[in-house]
């Protein structure tokens, strides 16, 4: 890549961001009447009110942490269930044939449609929030891990067949390492989904410590635009951070050897 195109790669997104903020100011200052300005407060008002006032920032960070914990616990549970399911599917075709339609069905169920059922069955506490996260983040882990486990070439399997290696040996020394890049892709997608699930669940399951979703809902009721935008920005950053964290983990674990398109 030339120096010029690399400079453009940095300059263009920044320019777009600046344009966005400028449009935000124009809309807030000139297009909205003062009585309706709470719908879109000025960017610097959001910055000062939500992030530079310690008391207000504290009111946001606590719930943000709660949402983070719920997202990560749910993601961890989904990872264990998803990887085990994918391994079982890779070991026996009939397991794959039996379970895969339900994995797809799980993906297609609108999570909001089963929220009342979850409330009905296990209540309004943390468990329900975690369950929502697990349900929403399970599918990408299963499909990506399964794809990875099945990605080994016939000749690589021949190497192990020559030595009459056991299924367990083939799984641990061939299939699982080969599946790692795809597994991390799945985890990265699911990490973003887990944050979404955690925030959505906040709207419905309000027992226990508030999450950032509940806080968003509260500020909406209070017509507190500055704090509402602050909370939304933090929630978005959480999603980005989750995505970035698993990207980093992936680079650390498979980066030293994985080259897409190389054989």
């Amino acid at each position, binding site marked *: 890549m030339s120096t010029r195109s690399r400079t453009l790669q940095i300059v263009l997104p920044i320019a777009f961001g600046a344009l966005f903020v400028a449009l935000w100011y124009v809309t807030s200052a000139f297009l909205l009447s003062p009585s309706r300005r709470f719908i879109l407060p000025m960017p610097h008002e959001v910055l000062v009110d939500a992030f530079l006032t310690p008391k207000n920032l504290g009111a946001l960070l606590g719930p943000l942490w709660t949402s983070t914990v719920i997202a990560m616990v749910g993601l961890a549970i989904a990872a264990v269930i998803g990887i085990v399911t994918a391994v079982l599917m890779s070991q026996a075709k009939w397991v794959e044939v039996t379970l895969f339609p339900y994995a797809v069905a799980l993906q297609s169920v609108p999570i909001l449609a089963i929220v009342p059922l979850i409330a009905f069955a296990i209540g309004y506490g943390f468990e329900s929030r975690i369950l929502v996260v697990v349900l929403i983040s399970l599918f990408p882990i299963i499909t990506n891990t399964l794809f990875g486990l099945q990605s080994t070439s016939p*000749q690589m399997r021949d190497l192990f067949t020559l030595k009459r290696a056991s299924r367990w040996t083939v799984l641990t020394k061939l299939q699982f390492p080969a599946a790692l890049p795809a597994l991390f892709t799945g985890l990265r997608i699911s990490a973003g989904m887990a944050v979404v699930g955690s925030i959505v669940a906040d709207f419905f399951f309000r027992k226990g410590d508030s999450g950032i979703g509940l806080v968003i809902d509260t500020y909406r009721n209070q017509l507190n635009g500055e704090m509402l935008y602050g909370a939304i920005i933090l929630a978005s950053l959480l999603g980005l951070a989750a995505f970035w964290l698993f990207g980093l983990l992936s680079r650390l674990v498979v980066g030293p050897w994985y080259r897409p398109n190389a054989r």
Partner: protein
Amino acid sequence: MPESQVVFDSVSMAFPGGTVALDGVDLTVARGEFVALLGPSGCGKSTLLRLASGLETATSGSTRVATRQIGYVFQDATLLPWRTVRQNVALFAELDHLDRAETASRVDDALGRVGLAGFEKHRPHQLSGGMRMRVSLARSLVNQPELFLFDEPFGALDEFTRERLNDDVRALWVRERFTGLFVTHSIPEAVYMATRVVVMGARPGRVIGEFEVPFGDARDEHTRYSPEFAELANAISDCLKGAMA
């Protein structure tokens, strides 16, 4: 009559769907011979290697192999990309549950013999195609093979690298005198490498001719351009053409 290492006894192989890969192949390979299996694609030459290695079982007839110490080099290096060169070369020792000291000494020895000492910590993606094939060779050497199977090895490499690796394989054979089965579709390569060329025809796969190669152990580029070489290559070419006509 020297001791036989591999015996194919009227071996036939039909795949589901009706493709007949091999039809009544009889072939005996003596210990220490280097046999080139030459033929067009679809003549079942690779299938013979899979049978000899035990990866497949014939539909009828029998395959007898006198050893379990087998080396197998595929057309692709088929290295495990997450393993270093050293870990790749150690794979078979690991699968055989050899102890640490024995594994280390065999791996060092194999790496030295293919000229890869110093590259132990490299990953496959950091190596050229030729070096990856050397790793693949070293991986098989760790088996201390008495029978060495080559399935169109080096076919994906450029001409120069391929000739160098062929010379290296010949040098290994001259020193160790393993039994070699070398699949190729190149007549000059078959003549240059082998002590005997077995010509196969396709649909169904069968043996259509055998040629003893009269050159000794010392072969070099002059061998390739000698009149005797050309004469033998011509005879083999006629044999192949006769089968395809």
